[in-house]
Protein backbone atom coordinates (compact mmCIF):
# COMPACT_ATOMS: atom_id res chain seq x y z
CA UNK A 1 0.00 0.00 0.00
CA UNK A 2 1.49 3.37 -0.96
CA UNK A 3 1.42 6.28 1.42
CA UNK A 4 -1.92 7.95 2.07
CA UNK A 5 -2.81 11.20 0.31
CA UNK A 6 -1.91 14.35 2.21
CA UNK A 7 -5.11 16.21 1.47
CA UNK A 8 -4.17 19.36 3.34
CA UNK A 9 -1.04 19.85 1.22
CA UNK A 10 -2.64 18.60 -1.97
CA UNK A 11 -5.69 20.85 -1.80
CA UNK A 12 -3.59 23.86 -0.81
CA UNK A 13 -1.41 23.41 -3.90
CA UNK A 14 -4.41 22.68 -6.08
CA UNK A 15 -6.36 25.77 -5.09
CA UNK A 16 -3.25 27.96 -5.31
CA UNK A 17 -2.85 26.75 -8.89
CA UNK A 18 -6.52 27.66 -9.48
CA UNK A 19 -5.83 31.23 -8.42
CA UNK A 20 -7.08 31.15 -4.81
CA UNK A 21 -4.47 32.96 -2.77
CA UNK A 22 -5.72 32.22 0.72
CA UNK A 23 -5.49 28.56 1.74
CA UNK A 24 -8.28 27.02 3.80
CA UNK A 25 -7.43 26.78 7.46
CA UNK A 26 -8.27 23.30 8.66
CA UNK A 27 -9.44 22.99 12.22
CA UNK A 28 -6.77 22.08 14.72
CA UNK A 29 -6.78 21.51 18.48
CA UNK A 30 -4.09 20.37 20.85
CA UNK A 31 -6.42 18.64 23.28
CA UNK A 32 -8.74 15.76 22.35
CA UNK A 33 -11.86 15.04 24.41
CA UNK A 34 -12.31 11.34 25.23
CA UNK A 35 -15.30 9.38 26.46
CA UNK A 36 -15.29 5.67 27.24
CA UNK A 37 -18.24 3.38 26.57
CA UNK A 38 -20.34 3.14 29.72
CA UNK A 39 -21.64 -0.35 28.92
CA UNK A 40 -20.80 -3.32 26.69
CA UNK A 41 -21.36 -2.79 22.98
CA UNK A 42 -23.87 -5.64 23.02
CA UNK A 43 -26.07 -3.42 25.19
CA UNK A 44 -25.29 -0.14 23.43
CA UNK A 45 -27.46 1.93 21.13
CA UNK A 46 -25.66 3.15 18.04
CA UNK A 47 -26.25 5.97 15.57
CA UNK A 48 -24.54 7.13 12.38
CA UNK A 49 -23.61 10.72 11.62
CA UNK A 50 -22.42 11.43 8.10
CA UNK A 51 -21.43 14.28 5.81
CA UNK A 52 -22.36 12.20 2.78
CA UNK A 53 -25.49 14.29 2.08
CA UNK A 54 -27.49 11.09 2.36
CA UNK A 55 -31.13 11.76 1.56
CA UNK A 56 -34.45 10.01 1.06
CA UNK A 57 -35.73 9.74 -2.50
CA UNK A 58 -38.86 11.83 -2.91
CA UNK A 59 -41.66 11.15 -5.36
CA UNK A 60 -41.17 13.17 -8.51
CA UNK A 61 -42.41 16.72 -8.19
CA UNK A 62 -42.15 16.74 -4.40
CA UNK A 63 -39.68 19.50 -3.72
CA UNK A 64 -40.60 20.30 -0.16
CA UNK A 65 -41.07 18.00 2.78
CA UNK A 66 -38.87 15.10 3.59
CA UNK A 67 -35.88 15.38 5.81
CA UNK A 68 -35.33 19.09 5.38
CA UNK A 69 -38.26 19.73 7.71
CA UNK A 70 -35.92 18.73 10.49
CA UNK A 71 -33.03 20.88 9.36
CA UNK A 72 -31.39 22.98 12.08
CA UNK A 73 -28.27 24.77 10.89
CA UNK A 74 -26.68 22.12 8.69
CA UNK A 75 -27.91 19.20 10.81
CA UNK A 76 -30.75 16.90 9.79
CA UNK A 77 -31.99 13.43 10.62
CA UNK A 78 -33.59 10.49 8.92
CA UNK A 79 -35.33 7.40 10.27
CA UNK A 80 -32.87 4.53 10.62
CA UNK A 81 -35.43 2.05 9.30
CA UNK A 82 -35.77 3.86 5.95
CA UNK A 83 -35.43 1.11 3.33
CA UNK A 84 -31.92 1.26 1.91
CA UNK A 85 -33.19 1.47 -1.67
CA UNK A 86 -34.91 4.74 -0.71
CA UNK A 87 -31.60 6.34 0.24
CA UNK A 88 -29.10 8.05 -2.02
CA UNK A 89 -26.39 10.70 -1.78
CA UNK A 90 -26.41 14.19 -3.23
CA UNK A 91 -22.77 14.68 -2.29
CA UNK A 92 -20.61 16.13 -5.06
CA UNK A 93 -17.35 16.29 -3.12
CA UNK A 94 -15.96 12.82 -3.75
CA UNK A 95 -13.44 11.31 -6.15
CA UNK A 96 -15.67 10.81 -9.15
CA UNK A 97 -12.76 9.63 -11.30
CA UNK A 98 -11.98 6.71 -9.01
CA UNK A 99 -15.34 5.64 -7.62
CA UNK A 100 -19.07 6.26 -7.22
CA UNK A 101 -21.70 6.64 -4.50
CA UNK A 102 -23.99 3.91 -5.82
CA UNK A 103 -23.74 1.78 -2.69
CA UNK A 104 -25.13 3.69 0.30
CA UNK A 105 -23.35 1.38 2.73
CA UNK A 106 -19.93 2.62 1.61
CA UNK A 107 -20.61 6.00 3.24
CA UNK A 108 -23.68 5.42 5.41
CA UNK A 109 -23.22 1.89 6.79
CA UNK A 110 -26.75 1.38 8.07
CA UNK A 111 -27.31 -2.15 6.72
CA UNK A 112 -23.91 -3.31 7.97
CA UNK A 113 -24.73 -2.02 11.45
CA UNK A 114 -28.19 -3.57 11.41
CA UNK A 115 -26.43 -6.87 10.73
CA UNK A 116 -24.26 -6.25 13.79
CA UNK A 117 -27.45 -5.84 15.82
CA UNK A 118 -28.76 -9.16 14.47
CA UNK A 119 -25.45 -10.81 15.38
CA UNK A 120 -25.67 -9.37 18.90
CA UNK A 121 -22.43 -7.43 18.48
CA UNK A 122 -24.24 -4.17 19.27
CA UNK A 123 -27.46 -3.73 21.23
CA UNK A 124 -29.60 -1.69 18.86
CA UNK A 125 -29.69 1.09 16.33
CA UNK A 126 -31.07 4.46 17.43
CA UNK A 127 -34.37 5.40 15.76
CA UNK A 128 -32.65 8.23 13.88
CA UNK A 129 -29.39 8.69 12.06
CA UNK A 130 -28.04 12.11 11.20
CA UNK A 131 -26.45 14.14 8.49
CA UNK A 132 -24.49 17.36 8.54
CA UNK A 133 -24.12 19.32 5.33
CA UNK A 134 -20.57 20.40 4.74
CA UNK A 135 -20.08 24.00 5.82
CA UNK A 136 -17.30 26.53 5.46
CA UNK A 137 -17.91 28.01 8.86
CA UNK A 138 -16.23 25.95 11.56
CA UNK A 139 -17.74 28.36 14.05
CA UNK A 140 -21.24 27.45 12.90
CA UNK A 141 -20.45 23.75 13.06
CA UNK A 142 -19.25 24.16 16.64
CA UNK A 143 -22.00 26.51 17.81
CA UNK A 144 -25.05 25.19 15.94
CA UNK A 145 -24.65 21.83 14.23
CA UNK A 146 -22.68 19.91 16.85
CA UNK A 147 -24.95 20.91 19.78
CA UNK A 148 -28.02 20.04 17.67
CA UNK A 149 -26.62 16.57 16.90
CA UNK A 150 -25.80 16.10 20.59
CA UNK A 151 -29.35 17.11 21.56
CA UNK A 152 -30.85 14.57 19.15
CA UNK A 153 -28.46 11.83 20.31
CA UNK A 154 -29.49 12.47 23.91
CA UNK A 155 -33.17 12.44 22.98
CA UNK A 156 -32.64 9.01 21.41
CA UNK A 157 -30.50 7.80 24.33
CA UNK A 158 -27.58 7.07 22.04
CA UNK A 159 -24.57 5.33 23.62
CA UNK A 160 -22.20 5.26 20.63
CA UNK A 161 -21.85 7.41 17.51
CA UNK A 162 -20.17 6.28 14.30
CA UNK A 163 -19.13 9.18 12.08
CA UNK A 164 -18.49 8.89 8.38
CA UNK A 165 -17.11 11.98 6.69
CA UNK A 166 -17.09 11.81 2.90
Amino acid at each position, binding site marked *: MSEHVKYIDRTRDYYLSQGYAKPYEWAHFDDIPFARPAKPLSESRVTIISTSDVAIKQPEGNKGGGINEHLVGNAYSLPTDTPIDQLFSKQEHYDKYATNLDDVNTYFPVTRLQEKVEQGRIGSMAPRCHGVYTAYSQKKTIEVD*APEILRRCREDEVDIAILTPV
Partner: protein
Amino acid sequence: MSLVARHLEANGIPTVVIATARDIVERCGVSRLVHVDFPLGNPCGVPFDQEMQSSVMDIALTMLEITEKPGSTEVAPFTWPAGEDWKKTIFTEEQPFLEGKAYDHWMEAKKRYKDRKAEKVTSED
Protein backbone atom coordinates in the same frame (compact mmCIF):
# COMPACT_ATOMS: atom_id res chain seq x y z
CA MET B 1 -17.35 16.04 10.94
CA SER B 2 -14.43 15.82 13.35
CA LEU B 3 -15.79 18.87 15.15
CA VAL B 4 -19.07 17.05 15.79
CA ALA B 5 -17.20 13.97 17.05
CA ARG B 6 -15.24 16.14 19.46
CA HIS B 7 -18.41 17.78 20.78
CA LEU B 8 -20.05 14.41 21.42
CA GLU B 9 -16.95 13.11 23.19
CA ALA B 10 -16.73 16.22 25.34
CA ASN B 11 -20.32 15.53 26.39
CA GLY B 12 -19.82 11.88 27.24
CA ILE B 13 -20.79 10.07 24.01
CA PRO B 14 -17.97 7.86 22.68
CA THR B 15 -17.33 8.13 18.94
CA VAL B 16 -15.36 6.50 16.19
CA VAL B 17 -14.69 8.31 12.92
CA ILE B 18 -14.30 6.20 9.76
CA ALA B 19 -12.55 8.30 7.14
CA THR B 20 -10.43 8.37 4.02
CA ALA B 21 -8.80 11.78 4.56
CA ARG B 22 -6.59 10.76 7.45
CA ASP B 23 -4.50 13.93 7.65
CA ILE B 24 -7.54 16.22 7.93
CA VAL B 25 -9.12 14.21 10.76
CA GLU B 26 -5.82 13.81 12.61
CA ARG B 27 -5.08 17.51 12.32
CA CYS B 28 -8.39 18.31 14.00
CA GLY B 29 -7.95 15.58 16.58
CA VAL B 30 -10.55 12.93 17.37
CA SER B 31 -10.60 10.19 19.95
CA ARG B 32 -10.74 7.21 17.55
CA LEU B 33 -10.15 7.08 13.80
CA VAL B 34 -10.39 4.15 11.43
CA HIS B 35 -8.45 5.12 8.34
CA VAL B 36 -9.63 3.39 5.18
CA ASP B 37 -7.16 4.34 2.46
CA PHE B 38 -9.72 4.65 -0.33
CA PRO B 39 -10.86 7.44 -2.66
CA LEU B 40 -13.06 10.17 -1.15
CA GLY B 41 -16.61 8.82 -1.04
CA ASN B 42 -16.09 5.26 0.15
CA PRO B 43 -14.84 5.36 3.76
CA CYS B 44 -16.70 2.17 4.71
CA GLY B 45 -15.31 -0.10 2.01
CA VAL B 46 -15.49 -0.96 -1.67
CA PRO B 47 -19.02 -0.49 -3.12
CA PHE B 48 -21.06 -3.70 -2.83
CA ASP B 49 -18.27 -5.60 -1.04
CA GLN B 50 -20.36 -6.50 1.98
CA GLU B 51 -17.72 -8.64 3.59
CA MET B 52 -15.16 -5.84 3.54
CA GLN B 53 -17.71 -3.32 4.79
CA SER B 54 -18.55 -5.66 7.64
CA SER B 55 -14.85 -5.92 8.54
CA VAL B 56 -14.56 -2.13 8.58
CA MET B 57 -17.46 -2.01 11.08
CA ASP B 58 -15.71 -4.67 13.19
CA ILE B 59 -12.52 -2.60 13.31
CA ALA B 60 -14.52 0.47 14.35
CA LEU B 61 -16.47 -1.40 17.04
CA THR B 62 -13.36 -3.08 18.44
CA MET B 63 -11.68 0.32 18.65
CA LEU B 64 -14.50 1.49 20.89
CA GLU B 65 -13.71 -1.37 23.24
CA ILE B 66 -9.94 -1.23 23.35
CA THR B 67 -8.79 2.35 22.72
CA GLU B 68 -7.06 3.65 25.81
CA LYS B 69 -5.96 7.03 24.59
CA PRO B 70 -7.56 9.74 22.45
CA GLY B 71 -6.00 10.50 19.07
CA SER B 72 -5.71 6.81 18.18
CA THR B 73 -5.71 5.74 14.52
CA GLU B 74 -6.30 2.22 13.26
CA VAL B 75 -5.49 1.58 9.58
CA ALA B 76 -7.84 -0.85 7.85
CA PRO B 77 -5.80 -3.55 6.07
CA PHE B 78 -7.36 -3.06 2.66
CA THR B 79 -6.09 -1.76 -0.67
CA TRP B 80 -8.23 -0.23 -3.38
CA PRO B 81 -8.88 -3.02 -5.91
CA ALA B 82 -8.24 -0.88 -9.01
CA GLY B 83 -4.76 0.08 -7.81
CA GLU B 84 -3.27 3.18 -6.25
CA ASP B 85 -3.17 5.52 -9.24
CA TRP B 86 -6.07 7.56 -7.88
CA LYS B 87 -3.72 8.88 -5.23
CA LYS B 88 -1.59 10.58 -7.88
CA THR B 89 -4.44 12.17 -9.77
CA ILE B 90 -6.81 13.49 -7.08
CA PHE B 91 -6.74 17.31 -6.92
CA THR B 92 -4.64 17.77 -10.04
CA GLU B 93 -5.28 19.99 -13.04
CA GLU B 94 -5.87 16.90 -15.18
CA GLN B 95 -8.73 15.89 -12.91
CA PRO B 96 -10.45 19.01 -11.55
CA PHE B 97 -12.12 18.04 -8.29
CA LEU B 98 -15.34 19.92 -9.01
CA GLU B 99 -16.56 20.67 -12.50
CA GLY B 100 -19.68 22.03 -14.13
CA LYS B 101 -22.68 22.04 -11.82
CA ALA B 102 -20.71 20.73 -8.85
CA TYR B 103 -18.31 23.66 -9.18
CA ASP B 104 -21.20 26.14 -9.48
CA HIS B 105 -22.85 24.72 -6.35
CA TRP B 106 -19.62 25.06 -4.42
CA MET B 107 -19.19 28.69 -5.53
CA GLU B 108 -22.80 29.45 -4.56
CA ALA B 109 -22.28 27.92 -1.12
CA LYS B 110 -19.10 29.91 -0.69
CA LYS B 111 -20.88 33.10 -1.67
CA ARG B 112 -23.73 32.45 0.78
CA TYR B 113 -21.17 32.01 3.55
CA LYS B 114 -19.41 35.25 2.61
CA ASP B 115 -22.71 37.16 2.41
CA ARG B 116 -23.81 35.92 5.82
CA LYS B 117 -20.48 36.92 7.27
CA ALA B 118 -20.75 40.39 5.70
CA GLU B 119 -24.31 40.81 7.02
CA LYS B 120 -23.18 39.88 10.49
CA VAL B 121 -20.35 42.40 10.48
CA THR B 122 -22.74 45.14 9.35
CA SER B 123 -25.33 44.30 12.00
CA GLU B 124 -22.69 44.31 14.71
CA ASP B 125 -21.50 47.81 13.78
